[in-house]
């Protein structure tokens, strides 16, 4: 697999507080990567640097080219950007105009625009939403809308910051399913930052950040095995991982079970 994003010894500070020191990482093309870390671990800053919203001084390579903070238009088509705060910053008053506006800027004709908007609404199984006013949307719907906006121009890389928090379980499941599908079928590279470890089960690869440092990275399943490092980084293990780990401590089981039935049948054969 070839890498689509490469960061080499990145240094970054806000005012005088150092956020990253010599941070290096690679993200593979068409992978589903999760970046996990507690509040203030540097997740959002890292995503902003990758997407060029913050300066990186030629340390970040995306698709063989340096990301340039001052010429951000060079990379905007590559990225679909979904940040948590965007739910408070919509440009228009209704969902349909909100979705057509970015497409108008891409110089598409009316027919193409309508087609694309419907396509994206169908993908989210929510064509009803198109007639709604933005003020009438629930938080879940607003978050879905932000993801729709991120996907509108068919980006190569989708960046999600904290998008699954505050969502209802139903929306969460739907969104994860859609992401998984786009990742498989269209080879969309997904980078998802979150504080919640139960949201990352569907990702392939996980990077754990703690206070601006990568403390662990690897296949998601093996990362979830390392409870000590995760707890130290201020992260809560999902129920099954937590239970298996604790039972392991009492020498009742010998490995991590992700499925409850498997564990029950193992305990009482």
């Amino acid at each position: 697999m070839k890498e689509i994003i490469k960061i080499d010894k990145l240094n970054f500070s806000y005012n005088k507080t150092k956020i990253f020191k010599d941070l290096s990482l690679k993200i593979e093309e068409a992978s589903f990567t999760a970046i996990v870390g507690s509040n203030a671990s540097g997740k959002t800053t890292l995503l902003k640097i990758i997407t060029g919203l913050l300066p990186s001084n030629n340390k970040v390579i995306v698709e063989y080219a340096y990301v340039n903070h001052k010429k951000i238009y060079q990379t905007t088509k590559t990225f679909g950007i979904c940040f948590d705060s965007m739910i408070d910053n919509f440009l228009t008053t209704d969902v349909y105009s909100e979705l057509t506006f970015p497409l108008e800027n891409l110089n598409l004709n009316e027919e193409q625009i309508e087609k694309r908007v419907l396509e994206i609404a169908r993908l989210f199984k929510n064509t009803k939403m198109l007639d709604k006013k933005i003020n009438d949307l629930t938080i879940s719907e607003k978050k879905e809308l932000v993801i729709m906006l991120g996907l509108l121009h068919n980006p190569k890389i989708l960046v999600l910051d904290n998008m699954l928090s505050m969502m209802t379980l139903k929306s969460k499941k739907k969104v994860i399913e859609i992401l998984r599908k786009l990742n498989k079928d269209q080879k969309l590279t997904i980078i998802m930052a979150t504080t919640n470890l139960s949201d990352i089960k569907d990702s392939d690869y996980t990077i754990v950040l703690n206070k601006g440092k990568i403390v662990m990275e690897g296949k998601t399943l093996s990362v979830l095995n390392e409870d000590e490092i995760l707890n130290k980084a201020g992260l809560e293990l999902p129920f099954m991982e937590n239970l298996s780990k604790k039972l392991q401590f009492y020498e009742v089981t010998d490995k991590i079970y992700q499925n409850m039935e498997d564990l029950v049948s193992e305990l009482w054969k």
Partner: protein
Amino acid sequence: MEIELKNVGYKYKNKKILEKINLTLEKEKITGITGNAKTLLLEIIDCLKKPTIGEILIDKKSISKENIQEIRKKIAFIKQLSTDQFFNDTIKEEMLFITNYINYTSKNIDKKMYESLKIVGLNDSYLDKKISHLSSGEKKLVQIAIGLISNPKVIILDEPFEELDYDNKKIVIKLIKQLKHKYKKTIIISSNDINLLYELTDNIIILKNGRLKVYMETAKALQDVEILEKLNIEIPDLVNFTLKARLKKIRLLHHRDILDLIKDIYKHV
């Protein structure tokens, strides 16, 4: 303070969002609310929104223009997004703004400010800190401290854990328990996290399609698979595990803490 909702309903643009809600909140208990239109119900309980039908009785008296100011001083509403609650630069300014706004007259407002910060576990130095410099965990604690200034009887928390990471979640959970046991507050929490509600709350309200479907003891409601399936609510992990074990004829008890469950499992293997 006793809060009773009598046949309360709420219409928005001819659409019934809430209908026929009858309930009396139990004093000095933690009540959880889950389902649709949670925030709206909380705002009605807070007397912030007037129901379109029905009435709210506070200590058996209905609300009028004369007593609403007094009543609202006794109820603190902690908003889901801290950005929606703060208007000022520093915590001190914010606290003075609130005391001014609710006409709170106390000879020792300074002392009162220190006390409420102390309850949430922050020291005096926080008074002059800028709100924008706080972490999201600290913001939530400050939000609660500001709510405590008028010495309310009832504290309403709208999705308090959504913005928080594991460590901060633990701190806020501990604080909520303390507010109930030590300071005898009545607490209402809305959340979609059924596991958390199961561990934390005494009573639970489940809303669906604008109706109140369940209002009973949390343990009773969330251990009843029939109720949960009918309302399409996931079974708490702890309950689910015990039920799965019982299918294997293992007599596990229901536990609301994972460590108790593990001790019980240990006895049975």
